[in-house]
């Protein structure tokens, strides 16, 4: 009603102004600056030295110094931590995908009250705070002789990842046309054969979503390594970072190099696959 009081020309130009979204851009640019600023700080200061870090902390180094990086990478411990994290995270994700897709296949095809009950029991885990169970988990891991090994982390991470895997993959299997399975059955293929030959290839994009969803919490987990692992050669990257943080405390430029190197794998993956990351992270809450 109000708009009709203005001449047509004016309305059109105000619409153009509206589509520029100036206030939105201003706010989003300010926040982008706030979001990137610490990462900028991390980057530029990791190329300074212990003392030059105090001159001009927010700007590029006067003289680029790669010594921090060579020192950290030359430290055998760091590479060991890296390897441990990689092993723990990749084995857990493979297990989540394997166990999750098997169970999802069954839960999608087997209709019945028991199936529904198992499904809801499993996906309830998406909201269960597993840290609360730590006291019992610590004793369990100790009793299994897994303490101070990355083997202690793998079953816990797998249990953490299974709920979301079931949630995403069951939904996905249900959308696969029944004709595909029936055609396989008529041709005399067993259900397991159908799972391997027909389902798994179709499930690939959904499995990528599950893998990405779990990657960040597994890679960035500090809690379980902190309570399960005390031995140097079994420490994960983040646990190693806490140790090196203490060791280099008087030399912040080295600390920053450690932080940068520990963040590098995830940042690289994120920059390459940001769309998939964002899609993966919303998988738990929003369908489609």
């Amino acid at each position, binding site marked *: 009603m*109000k708009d009709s009081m203005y001449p047509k020309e004016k309305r059109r130009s105000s619409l153009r102004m509206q589509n520029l979204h100036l206030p939105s851009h201003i706010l*989003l640019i300010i926040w982008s600056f706030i*979001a990137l600023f610490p990462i900028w700080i991390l980057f530029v200061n990791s190329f300074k030295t212990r003392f030059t870090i105090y001159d001009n902390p927010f700007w590029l180094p006067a003289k680029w110094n790669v010594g921090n990086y060579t020192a950290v990478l030359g430290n055998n411990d760091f590479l060991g931590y890296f390897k441990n994290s990689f092993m723990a995270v990749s084995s857990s994700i493979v297990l989540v995908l394997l166990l999750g897709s*098997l169970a999802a296949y069954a839960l999608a095809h087997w209709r019945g009250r028991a*199936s529904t009950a198992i499904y809801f029991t499993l996906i309830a885990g998406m909201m269960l705070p597993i840290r609360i169970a730590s*006291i*019992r988990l610590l004793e369990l891991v100790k009793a299994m002789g897994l303490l101070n090994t990355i083997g202690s982390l793998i079953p816990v991470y797998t249990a953490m990842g299974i709920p979301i895997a079931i949630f995403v993959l069951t939904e996905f299997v249900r959308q696969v046309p029944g004709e595909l399975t029936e055609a396989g059955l008529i041709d005399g293929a067993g259900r397991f054969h159908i799972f391997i030959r027909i389902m798994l290839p179709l499930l690939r994009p959904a499995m990528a979503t599950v893998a990405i969803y779990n990657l960040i919490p597994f890679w960035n987990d500090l809690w379980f390594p902190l309570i399960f692992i005390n031995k140097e050669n079994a420490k994960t990257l983040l646990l190693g970072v806490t140790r090196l943080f203490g060791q280099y405390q008087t030399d912040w430029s080295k600390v920053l190099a450690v932080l940068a190197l520990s963040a590098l794998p995830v940042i690289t993956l994120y920059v390459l696959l940001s769309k998939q990351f964002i899609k993966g992270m919303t998988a738990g809450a929003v369908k489609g």
Partner: protein
Amino acid sequence: MLLIPKKRRSIPALYPGAPYWLRYILPALLVYLLFMAWPLLDSVRLSFYTGNAANRSFTGFSNYVRLFAGGEVTDRYWGAFGQTWYFFAIHMLVQNVLGLLFAAMLSNATLRGRQVYQTIIFLPTTLAILVTGYLWKLILNPLWTRDVLTGAGLGALVYPWLGEASTALTAVSLVSCWQWVGIPTVMFVAAMGNVPGDLLEAASIEGANTWHQFRHIKLPIIMPVVGIVTILTFVNNFNAFDAVFAMTGPNGPPNYKTDLIGTLFYRVGMAGQHPVAIPDTGLGAAIATVTFFMLCCGVIPTLKRTQTKE
């Protein structure tokens, strides 16, 4: 056998029942039950015991009595309890409101560079809070930034934010919001994608302004996701540990003012407290049980209220 629909029973080989399908489900179910469900429930039982795995004896409610009857343990618990609620409130007010605001802007189809903004907003979320926490600890260090800030006329910002009891918890909470704001943002963006465009168009023709469109069209549609985000924030904040561990330390300094339930639980149940560095598993389990109970009381009504559809 009863679970198989009658029509299908004629060809059992093609439509197998529970015994067959359980073989696929059991591996996942066993790992989940053994490493998640059972430890969670058994922690409740452990809260009625004292001692450790080798030597455990039933003590009834004595762990709860120690937790609530007064003395140092009680002071620590209520301190951490109040601070965790404060931590949660800041996240709801800053992280989730900002996320909603960003999402409302980013879901506008005519906004240019939406993908770039979203990628940047989400970037800190991919980093470990331990890493960003250490980083912010340096940035908030007044010794490091004094010259450059006073030089820029921002001398008022030179302050030991993490060292002063009055500001430390707020500083830690805000850093945590900075880190996680990407999660509510992308969830709300995805949810707002479900809002039918013609509905908004019709509303704007009828003269509804942006706020009215948000309040009466978008918000009701994204309500289920608002519920999920609230629950995630609640569950994560009541287990928060890394942010405090990195920025101030596991003891929640200064003077326990940044102590959260997560850090208290760690000290009591996992690491052991000064002067005896032996974990008190019974008391730790009692803290965990109270948290668990509180989370159930918060989560179930929120789910019921926001997930009514489906």
